[in-house]
């Protein structure tokens, strides 16, 4: 209904602007948003008892930042729920009754939480729908939500099983599963075994009739970059019987990722894999010349037209070892892949941001990790790996805005760990991670609204116990807290 109102409002604005020939599209959008806001029950507000630890950078002081939930909060309908350790990937669903369901990976508790928010977008209930038993204590890193409207199947939440318990692959979870079944999990073996950071399904309009899933392999290797960018292709909605491919750069002279220079475009083919198991996929990748990156992290595709939907960006976080010099990135890179219109296994790749260029536009990069891509921007989230070798890289985790059209890069905000430490929220010598950012503008019917998470490394309860919910993991391996924010005002 709200979408209908918004559409009607937009249409009205369009006609008004044609008649009067004065209002720009942007003004019409703003007016439509105002109209939608009047009928929107969502009220963005601070809901956490934890202070805001995000410091806005010049040029972004107009952003509104709201604290939504932290590990020390108590939710009114589930007082025993603990928002656990190292929250990560997330997906948001607007329910028919006006409430919201947030699925959120809790990485270091090896689990997935379901948080219910009321129709004002206030968190009121939390529970775990996948626990450490179900994941065999495998960390659930980034995640992505599939819906029939966008992906052609679902709702189904994908989660990357990466480290810890050795069940390395793509987990698939019904977002509405009964919490009493939290001990049971399903893995999509057809998508192969990887140190999986994330699995992201492209828009159903990108390749009609096909389901194309991109998988990031976060494998760390001290001698040869060994993280692949894999692709699963099946008929639409078929997650079991499709084929598996790996990205190979076919342009001459490109053997390692750092052979690609920032701003240059190269040809790629996705080469089919025969294997599905961890070591054999790595061996097959090397035998077939499939590119090994220094830890592929998050992936997201460009919103908007079908042409846009065939483009995706991914982050390579980097690894610093002498043996990797000249092979893999140290400080991290962002790649842009454009797939051919009729063939998902062919396209081009461009390194658009190279953190190893110490005088380049990404000179501040210190381990980019997660990405969220809108129609015109890429938002890049950092997880510093601990080697701030230049003054520009010597900072806490930052969020960057990359303009796809102008190719400009700006720093949006930084974790304010100095302030946090002064208030007793962890030390300053253990950098936090910014992660889990998703665009929630459509679900909330409020433009330019994003959800963002921080992993507050080193912040533990004052009594020395753990920010881990026993129903997620009765034997915590990590005690640190997490925090979730809403950031309003970032361009899309």
């Amino acid at each position, binding site marked *: 209904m709200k979408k209908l109102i918004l559409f009607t409002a937009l249409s009205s604005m369009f006609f008004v602007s044609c008649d009067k020939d004065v209002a720009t599209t942007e003004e019409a959008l703003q007016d439509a948003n105002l109209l939608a806001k009047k009928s929107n029950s969502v009220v963005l507000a601070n809901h956490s008892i934890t202070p805001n630890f995000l410091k806005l950078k010049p040029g972004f002081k107009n952003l509104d930042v709201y604290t939504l939930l932290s590990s020390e909060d108590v939710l009114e309908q589930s007082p025993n729920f603990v928002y656990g350790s190292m929250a990560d990937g997330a997906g948001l669903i607007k329910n028919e009754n006006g409430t919201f369901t947030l699925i959120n990976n809790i990485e270091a508790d090896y689990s997935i939480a379901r948080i219910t928010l009321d129709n004002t977008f206030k968190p009121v209930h939390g529970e775990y729908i996948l626990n450490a038993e179900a*994941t*065999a*204590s495998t960390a659930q890193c980034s995640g992505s939500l599939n819906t029939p409207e966008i992906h052609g199947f679902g709702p189904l939440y994908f989660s990357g099983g990466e*480290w810890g*318990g050795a069940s390395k692959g793509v987990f698939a979870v019904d977002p509405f599963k009964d919490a009493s079944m939290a001990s049971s999990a399903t893995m999509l073996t057809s998508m192969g075994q990887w140190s999986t950071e994330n699995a992201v399904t492209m828009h159903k309009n990108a390749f009609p009739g096909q389901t194309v899933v991109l998988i990031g392999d976060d494998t*760390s290797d001290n001698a040869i970059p060994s993280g692949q960018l894999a692709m699963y292709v099946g008929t639409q909605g078929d997650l079991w019987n499709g084929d598996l491919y790996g990205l190979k750069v076919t342009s001459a002279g490109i053997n390692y990722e750092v052979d690609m220079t920032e701003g240059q475009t190269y040809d790629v083919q996705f080469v089919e894999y025969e294997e599905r198991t*961890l070591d054999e996929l790595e061996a097959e990748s090397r035998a077939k010349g499939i590119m090994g990156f220094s830890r592929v992290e998050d992936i997201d595709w460009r919103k908007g037209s079908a042409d846009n939907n065939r483009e995706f960006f991914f982050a390579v976080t980097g690894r610093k070892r002498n043996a990797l010099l000249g092979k893999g990135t140290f400080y991290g890179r962002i790649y842009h892949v454009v797939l051919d219109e009729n063939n998902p296994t062919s396209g081009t790749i461009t390194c658009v941001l190279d953190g190893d260029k110490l005088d380049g536009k990404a000179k501040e990069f210190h381990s980019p990790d997660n990405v969220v891509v809108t129609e015109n921007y890429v938002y890049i989230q950092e997880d510093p790996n601990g080697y701030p070798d230049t003054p520009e890289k010597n900072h806490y985790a930052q969020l960057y805005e990359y303009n796809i059209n102008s190719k400009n890069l700006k720093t949006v905000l930084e974790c304010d760990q100095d302030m946090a430490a002064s208030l007793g929220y962890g030390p300053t010598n253990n950098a936090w991670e910014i992660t889990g950012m998703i665009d929630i503008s459509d679900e909330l019917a409020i433009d330019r609204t994003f959800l963002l998470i921080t992993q507050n490394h080193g912040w533990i309860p004052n009594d020395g116990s753990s920010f881990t919910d026993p129903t997620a993991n009765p034997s915590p*391996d990590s005690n640190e807290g997490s925090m979730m924010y809403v950031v309003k005002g970032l361009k899309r």
Partner: protein
Amino acid sequence: MSIKTIKEAYIFIGLFSLLLIGCNSKDTSYAALELPLNQLEENYKIHLLEAVKWLDSIETSDNIKDVKAYNMKARDAFKWAEPVLSYVDSENYKSLNQPNILKIEEEDLTDIKIKEPYGFQVLEESIYEEVPNLESIKKNARLISKRILLISNSTQLDYIKDYHVIWMIRDQVVRIALTGITGFDSPVLERSL
């Protein structure tokens, strides 16, 4: 020759037979070609679930004598599944059969993880301690059981080709020869062979 050795010999013969059936059926129908693989998957899952059953029995037992018996049965079932498990899910196999020492994973300078060991070797050592801690034994058995259940639920062997089966047989022969002789993965009972 112990019962264990006979069983491992049967695994070898069984897998080899499956391989021969697979190789000999090249000219037969597609359905016939599918059969050995289905059998392999079915047998594999039967052994996994057998292990789960005995591990769950440990969890409900308060008698250390019974716990010892259930552990042996669970480990036997695990060993029957070993040739396939160690290939199709090598990381989980290594976890389930890891030695009783701390595991350290270094992702980067700011991310070093220290993991407590668990699995069949840890279970065996804890069961045969002078004063066994039943609580700890049950916790470990439950962890192993849930891990094997996840593996069983996530098994799909339709990508397996003839050469994969040859690799499984090769690796299992080597495994029996090496860990069997040394008692490597049975630290107290030395019941590897």
